[in-house]
């Protein structure tokens, strides 16, 4: 259930160019969040909240980690918040990546692009706990934007890709798909063009994609964040029905 909670900032640090990792303390959310869910964060001076994925939880320390890229005025302001301040958050929102759905996979492929990397990291840590074998592809603009490489290596084999080749493999995440070993299922999060390319390339595989869309309410009431679906319902809401959908459920 989504609650409106105050989360205390435990740490906030820049971990790559324009990329901030923030650890937030809150018992309820750290106990209830699952991978792929997001927080809907109020930011001073802004009419709308900002959706940010949950990148990790530590239920013992009762903390939740978020990772965000500074791309506009909201994330810019959020980056100025100091340790000790509290932020007003709705969460956990949405439906995350299904892990127990259907036949439990033995091996999975994680594919994250840019700021789509955080939620699949959280997912990877969960999968590993369930004894599922994980391999990952993470893509970034360039060397200065790379983060969490070691964290992913700790989960399993990891391919780092940069668009300009300044670090790891050069190109797009789809360019290294042929380097991966067989997998039962894939999970992906990143910009829409990347998700399109991934689902095209991996057609026929069972896959789950996490989408982004501009949101109003973030809880399913305003119909701002819809995505066309294959069934007769026509549209699903990313904030409530998603942000994760089966690769063949929605129209890309």
């Amino acid at each position, binding site marked *: 259930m*989504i609650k409106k909670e105050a989360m205390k900032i435990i740490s906030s640090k820049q971990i790559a160019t324009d990329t901030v990792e923030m650890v937030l303390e809150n018992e309820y959310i750290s106990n209830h969040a699952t991978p792929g869910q997001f927080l809907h964060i109020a930011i001073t001076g802004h009419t*709308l*909240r900002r959706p940010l994925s949950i990148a990790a939880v530590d239920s013992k320390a009762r903390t939740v980690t978020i990772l965000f890229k500074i791309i506009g005025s909201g994330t810019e302001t959020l980056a100025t918040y100091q340790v000790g301040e509290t932020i007003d958050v709705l969460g956990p929102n949405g439906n995350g990546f299904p892990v127990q759905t259907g036949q439990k996979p033995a091996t999975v492929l994680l594919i994250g692009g840019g700021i789509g990397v955080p939620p699949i990291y959280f997912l990877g840590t969960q999968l590993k706990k369930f004894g599922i074998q994980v391999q990952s592809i993470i893509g970034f603009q360039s060397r200065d934007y790379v983060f969490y490489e070691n964290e992913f290596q700790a989960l399993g084999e990891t391919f780092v890709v940069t668009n300009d080749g300044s670090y790891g493999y050069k190109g797009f995440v789809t360019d290294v798909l042929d380097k991966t070993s067989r997998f039962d299922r894939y999970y992906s999060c990143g910009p829409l063009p990347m998700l399109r390319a991934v689902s095209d390339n991996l057609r026929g595989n069972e896959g789950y994609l996490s989408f982004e869309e501009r949101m109003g*309410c973030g809880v399913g009431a*305003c119909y701002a964040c*819809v995505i066309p679906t294959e069934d007769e319902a026509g*549209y699903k809401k990313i904030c409530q029905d998603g942000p994760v959908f089966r690769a063949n459920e929605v129209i890309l």
Partner: protein
Amino acid sequence: MIDLSVTLPGLNLQNPIMPASGCFGFGREYSQFYDLGKLGAVIMKAATGEARLGNKTPRVAETASGMLNAIGLQNPGVEKIVETEIPFLSQFHIPIIANVAGSTIEEYEKVVTVLNESTDLAAIELNISCPNVKEGGIQFGIDPEMAATVTEKVKKRTRVPVYVKLSPNVTNIVDMAKAIEAAGADGLSMINTLTGMQIHLPSKAPLIANKTGGLSGPAIKPIAIRMIYEVKQHVTIPIIGMGGIETAEDVLEFLLAGADAVAIGTANFLNPFVCPDIIEQLPAVLKKYGFTSVKEATGGAHQ
């Protein structure tokens, strides 16, 4: 004791606070946060004759102290609303108001006829800001004659009182209000959103897929207050006021300008508890400024 109750045609309100149409869906999502039975009433998302998918995304953009939206009337259609949404809301025992939209007069008539099947509906909010497809996309809401015609036709078909929702995108809001009152409306609801646009610099194109969107939120409050103040001087039917309300002080400002009750839209997105929070704070604010009831405050700025 401060008396928050307000009695309007079809609406016995325990307090003057209701969520605005389109910002609260059909109440399901916000019912996770609090007991909707606390509200004065609830205004549902627009209902049209058939299910509509609405516009492409992006459908919303943030602006300074406001937002743009172009949802495009996505809704499951009036029949589904009567079947599943009104029954859900009726468990809260508060007046339910249906927001009615359409692209032709016939569609408006159809929607209200289907709504007659529900015994749990308290009133209709007639959304005349939709483009009229027959008249080449001109909105019913910007022409006094067209607004009067649709009001009359709807009044003939419905069992419940009709509050006509005014568009602020007009040169003369008073002419609109007078024409609608003369056509038999039981009340007015004002204001709907102002048409706006945001250009997305990276793509060098309007950000909202529909290009234009409706501006709401605190940015438009001064316009809402001015229009309500002006209209109040020329009509006798009650006014449900809205546009940028975020606090109990804002509610009092609307009451003083001439609103009998208010609706809260955009502010729900930032604070899902905004309606119950305001209901709780309103008595203290009324008291602070010397009022013992909501009724007493209505129109207080017209001396």
